[in-house]
């Protein structure tokens, strides 16, 4: 009996010991469900193409093309045509032309731009491209270069002093990173390349994209989109022949058509006939931040960017682009807005001011390059270049073509430089062009010269902290 008890006790002891040592180390392998591991992410054509779509999403981010690129330009450029009347401190710093190095807009733009560039670099790795068939390879390479080149263009002109043609632009631009960061070891410190080198890289990428991409590619980048951005870049460089050539190529061959009225080009659920490239946005996407800032409607927008009535005086009374809808009611959404400007009605923040209707719905596409801009580029480039006109039209004809759609009376031939420049403003205002145009034309912005140090963004404080190779823009160090 005693032996039996001892036996059963030992058995219990053994069972308990077993329970104790139950091995479940494999239970420590819990994998994520909403992510995949990086080493398999770019290993099949489907996944590579999915990552390419991811790049568009990153580019659409509000911190980049989705809004901030536009806001920096319009806020720095304004000297009274638009007033910032919101509560956010970051945009106000740009309007005052006194940004701080810790401005969180600038920091997130920097980080997100290089995040996008790194994704493009990852897609452009030889071993990744080698996994694709020829057609796909051209598409992936072309689109990745398109987004990378365009991003470098935007950040170079925001963080670096203006490009000046005819000289070597040795002023610091942004660091050019062309290799993918696959591990922490790749996350090395880099220094700023010159503006000249940055523009070279921009051209290399965009020319390659133009040559690789097809003329039609759904909602994604096409050779025409690449050409259109190239036209912008050449214009910024005052390389008028190339600017006119690229613009003309898009106008002549792209099959794009101006929308019936100026306002038709905006707030669309699908690309308009005029969209050479637009970021796609729908109800399941993030809120379009441009609308948050510019609109003041029922359920949309803070009305922070208050357009001044004096600005509307610039338009011809018949010009659709300068019309004001002043009978708005609290219930109005963008669908009830029929004119380019309206009196804000939103309950969110500022109502009662004048707002642009270009950005009036959170969930519609964001036009990036419209056909109208190509006409304006061709007109200006042909005007500035003393040689033969590129394309069938004279500058006057191009300008009047754009004005005609807006029902603005035609300008007498020949148009002047001032008229061409004014037309750009009237057509492209609030689309993020103004600052760069003023710099290109070497025009003062208020009391500041076009190349004043406070008209470019600071290298973010966090980035300088972590990378001592980066040189801060001098105004942020010395006030000059």
């Amino acid at each position, binding site marked *: 009996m005693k032996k039996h008890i001892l036996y059963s006790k030992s058995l219990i002891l053994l069972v308990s010991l077993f329970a104790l040592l139950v091995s479940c180390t494999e*239970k420590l392998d819990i994998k994520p469900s909403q992510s995949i591991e990086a080493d398999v992410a770019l290993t099949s054509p489907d996944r590579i193409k999915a990552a390419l779509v991811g790049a568009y999403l990153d580019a659409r981010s509000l911190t980049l093309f989705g809004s901030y690129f536009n806001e920096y330009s319009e806020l720095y450029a304004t000297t009274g045509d638009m007033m910032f009347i919101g509560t956010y401190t970051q945009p106000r710093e740009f309007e005052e032309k006194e940004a701080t190095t810790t401005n969180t807009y600038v920091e997130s733009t920097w980080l997100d731009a290089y995040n996008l560039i790194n994704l493009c670099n990852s897609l452009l790795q030889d071993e990744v491209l080698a996994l694709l068939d020829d057609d796909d390879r051209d598409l992936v390479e072309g689109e990745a270069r398109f987004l990378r080149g365009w991003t470098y263009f935007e950040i170079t002109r925001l963080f670096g002093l203006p490009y000046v043609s005819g000289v070597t632009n040795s002023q610091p631009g942004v660091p050019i990173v062309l290799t993918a*960061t696959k591990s922490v070891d790749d996350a090395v410190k880099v220094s700023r390349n010159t503006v000249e080198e940055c523009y070279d890289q921009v051209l290399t990428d965009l020319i390659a994209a133009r040559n690789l991409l097809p003329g039609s590619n759904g909602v994604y980048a096409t050779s025409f989109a690449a050409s259109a951005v190239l036209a912008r870049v050449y214009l910024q460089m005052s390389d008028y022949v190339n600017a006119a050539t690229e613009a003309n190529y898009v106008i002549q061959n792209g099959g794009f058509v101006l929308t019936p009225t100026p306002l038709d080009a905006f707030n669309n659920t699908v690309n308009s006939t005029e969209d050479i490239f637009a970021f796609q946005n729908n109800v399941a996407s993030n809120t379009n931040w441009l609308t948050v800032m510019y609109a003041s409607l029922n359920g949309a927008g803070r009305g922070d960017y208050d357009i001044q009535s004096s600005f509307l005086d610039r338009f011809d009374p018949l010009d659709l682009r300068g019309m004001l809808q002043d009978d708005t009611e609290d219930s109005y959404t963008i669908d009830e807005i029929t004119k380019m400007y309206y009196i804000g009605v939103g309950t969110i923040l500022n109502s009662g001011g004048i707002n642009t209707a270009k950005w009036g719905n959170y969930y519609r596409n964001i036009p990036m390059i419209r056909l109208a801009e190509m006409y304006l580029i061709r007109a200006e480039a042909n005007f500035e270049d003393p040689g033969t006109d590129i394309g069938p039209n004279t500058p006057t004809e191009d300008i009047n073509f754009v004005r005609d759609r807006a029902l603005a009376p035609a300008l007498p031939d020949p148009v002047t430089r001032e008229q061409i420049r004014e037309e750009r403003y009237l057509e492209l205002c609030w689309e993020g062009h103004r600052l760069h145009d003023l710099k290109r034309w070497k025009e003062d912005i208020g009391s500041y010269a076009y190349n004043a140090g406070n008209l470019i963004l600071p290298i973010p404080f966090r980035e300088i902290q972590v990378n001592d190779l980066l040189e801060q823009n001098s105004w942020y160090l010395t006030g000059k």
Partner: protein
Amino acid sequence: MRKLLLTSLITCLLSFSAFGQQKTITGVIKDKTDGLPITGATVQVLGSTTGAISDAEGRYSISAASGNTLIFRYIGMKQQEVVVGTENVINVTMEPDDVGLDEIVVVGYGSAIKRELTGAITKVETKGIAEIPTASFDAAIQGKTSGVFIEQASGKLGETVKMRIRGSSSVSANNQPLYVVDGVPITTENLSNDNNQPTSPLTDINMADVESIQILKDASAAAIYGSRASNGVVIITTKRGQAGATKFNLQYTTGISEPSNLMEWLNGDQYLMLFNEAMDNVSDGDGLVWGWLPKEDIWEMFVGPTWNEGYNSDWQKEAFQKGRINRVNVSGSGGNEMTTYFAGLSYDDTKGILRDNSMNKMSARLNLDQKATERLSFGLQMNVIRTEMERVENDNAFATPLQLVAQSPLTPVYDPDTGELNTNTIYYNSLISLRDATNNQTSYRSLANINASYKIFDALTFKSEFGSDILDLREKNFWGRKTISGGPAGEAQNRSVRVVNYNWENYFTFNKEFGSQNLNAVAGMSYQESMTTGSNIEGKGFPTDDFHNMASAAEATSFSSWDDGNSYLSYFLRANYKINEKYFFTVSGRVDGSSRFGKDNRFGFFPAASAGWIISQEDFMRSISKTLSYLKVRASYGITGNSGIPDYAHLALYSSINYAGRYGLEPTQLQNSGLGWENTAQTDIGLDFGLFNNRLTGEIDYYVKKTTDLLLYRTLPGTSGFDGYWNNVGELSNKGLEFSLHSNNLTGDFVWTTDFNMSFNRNEIINIDGPEITPNSINYVIEGEPIGVFKIAKFAGADPDNGDALYYVGPDSDETTNNFNLAAPQVVGSPNPKFTGGLNNYFEYKGLDLTILMSFVYGNMIYNGAGNYQSASCDWFDNQTIDQLDRWQNPGDVTDVPQVRLGDGNGTKISTRYLTDGSYLRVRNVSLGYNLPASLVNRMKLTNLRIYVAATNLFTFTDYKGWDPEVNYTGVSRSTQNTNIIQGYDFYTAPQARTYTLGINISF
């Protein structure tokens, strides 16, 4: 366990021989506090081995002679001695032992007697905790324990409470302690929507169920919890039944609440005057403001048509409501020798002080313990909870009630024409949201623990315990069409999260006497897994505001579902060895593996050792034992870990995303396969003492905590495409001194006891192997400074010549500048207090008792993040704090308020203008109770009847100019790192409630 210890205690004490003429003495032993019989009390004849134990009715019977002394002992009660006379019946009423040296303290995987502890463990006084009307138990123990800093985020209900045990031990990983309820590490992290401030699942714990709260502070105590113990461990046990007649308890508390403080704002006239001046100061020669428009037009445009109609609205008042609280607890407990139980039911209905903020909580519990055989026993603890909250929006939303203070007093609350809420206000009138939006969060939770223990040999017991914490949280939000985010036709959100967290433990307990020595050991394993699944859908476009469900939405604007998880596999061992009741030694070790770490570094080892010596037990101390009645020294050293980082932090990942209906992938993080634990080595030296027969007792601890291999989200050059990655780099330290005193000032009929505790902690970042870290350009992580230190420009007041805001150019300079960019930020203060503490006074006279609990925090600074709107020299039309009237007006004026200038940002940049001392002394709880005399109560067939009145947060003494110095805006979507760093930050953050309650507690 308890019985084992008891037995060994008795064995030790009964080693004497008997003498004299014998008779049988009987009697009943009762508890003085509740008048109930005490089961299991020991009676011993002094100097003999004769002993007895009281039964379920408290009866005992013992053989003794006249002239003998009977010693009555019961754990947690004062020992009593009665000299036997001629009587044969001796009834004894025992009083709780305030010194508590013999009280049972629950430690990880077992319990111990306080006297024998070698580690730093505080058992928190839980008496009366259920009478305190705070939302969660952590807020109810504020100021009660040394070494523990507890801070409520705001006066909103159900928000996460910050608890720091001996400082912050991490920069990027979690700094909150591990909470273990009845042996199960429970789910504590916020599960609510990222759009709002975090809520605390700890709110679910019903205070009326809580039996004890232990706080394990040093490594020796906490290391048994290994990888999650660096921030200390809070062990909570719930009430168990005792053999005997069923005891019923009924408690009802009701009360009202109001904001503990209001701020003073400009009235209509002052506002009109000051903003006219602010516009004059920015007008040109033609009287045009900014050279643009005349003043009247600006008034009309921004403040609205009522600006000159003489309104004087008090918007602050509109943000608040009269709070109320109703709380009912009913419980029954009892059992027999084989089965004991505790069953409790609670209902708590609280209406907060902020408009539209309320909480409703129901909790049911059954704790059952069954002795199946002599050797086998099992138990079940089961708790089902439902917590429903009506929440308000986050502090940084126009729709949150307190942002109403930004409105102009010149605009009426209601539109005089329509009688509806005024929409013609400077900012969105958030009263519209309070009317037309709902923000409902309901959680259902079950905490269950089933366990069995088997005594294999007398000295060896095996215990298996399976615990689960299943938490199901649902949020249903709706914004009507007239609200800020609900236009044009309403918006709704439906979100649900379920966390299934289970824990399985198996361990042996060994306990054996070897003469005057005792060995007590625990060895076992545990596996814990926590899986979270969730889904979220948002939709827009509803036929009318009556429809709040997705079924009625025109389109879905957001949809998502997810699952995530983590697991821990652990083996642990602990041995306690004691010699002669004088020398105590503990060693422990735990091996922990976690899914959160890289394959190369998945397991960590956490050892600890400690020793204690009760010097007063030594012969050489006898002579002074009347004065120095108790003296013990303790020392411990050990290593604990921290694994409070996101799941999968060690993996290189691409995440899925959608681009306008098209699927995509993007890289999101870099790999670190060597990612491992953050280690904290802690040395603790403690001294426990009792003076004058333990009339005055106390504990002093000095500790040094050094955290190495910090789990740091290390900054990377952004040009790499990544902002950082998780790595084990850097170190920080916490050094501190803490002491607590307990004094029985008066004993007898009039009882007066005082508890005082105070803690000094010095946190220092030693190395972060990279640049300074700041999430907000205000709070920083800087080597050589404490975490979250304020580094901002130093404000120098208004320029006496022209009223410009001036800043100091740098730390070592008296030179000032009006160019903010030239003012170098400098370290100007810390959000971490220099010391914290509490003072509790308890008075008792003939059934009447009075408790006054105060707590204090000293030496910390608070930054008012809304200062650039609230006290901004009229930078914008936000109503200003009254102190802005002291503005600069004429050359020669010396003031800290720069000239008022509309739209000019005169002095509104981040600077010490908005940094103030946050020290405070708060009378946290005053409660007066009356226990009706036993004679009266017994006639009512009750065992006890208590009525009480109480006030919380009655007074606060502080120089802080905001609503409340106990403040921390916890932000939205904030990473753990940012939560750790951003401290002492106010942003329209609601003050704590001042609550007055009245209650009754009946036992029968």
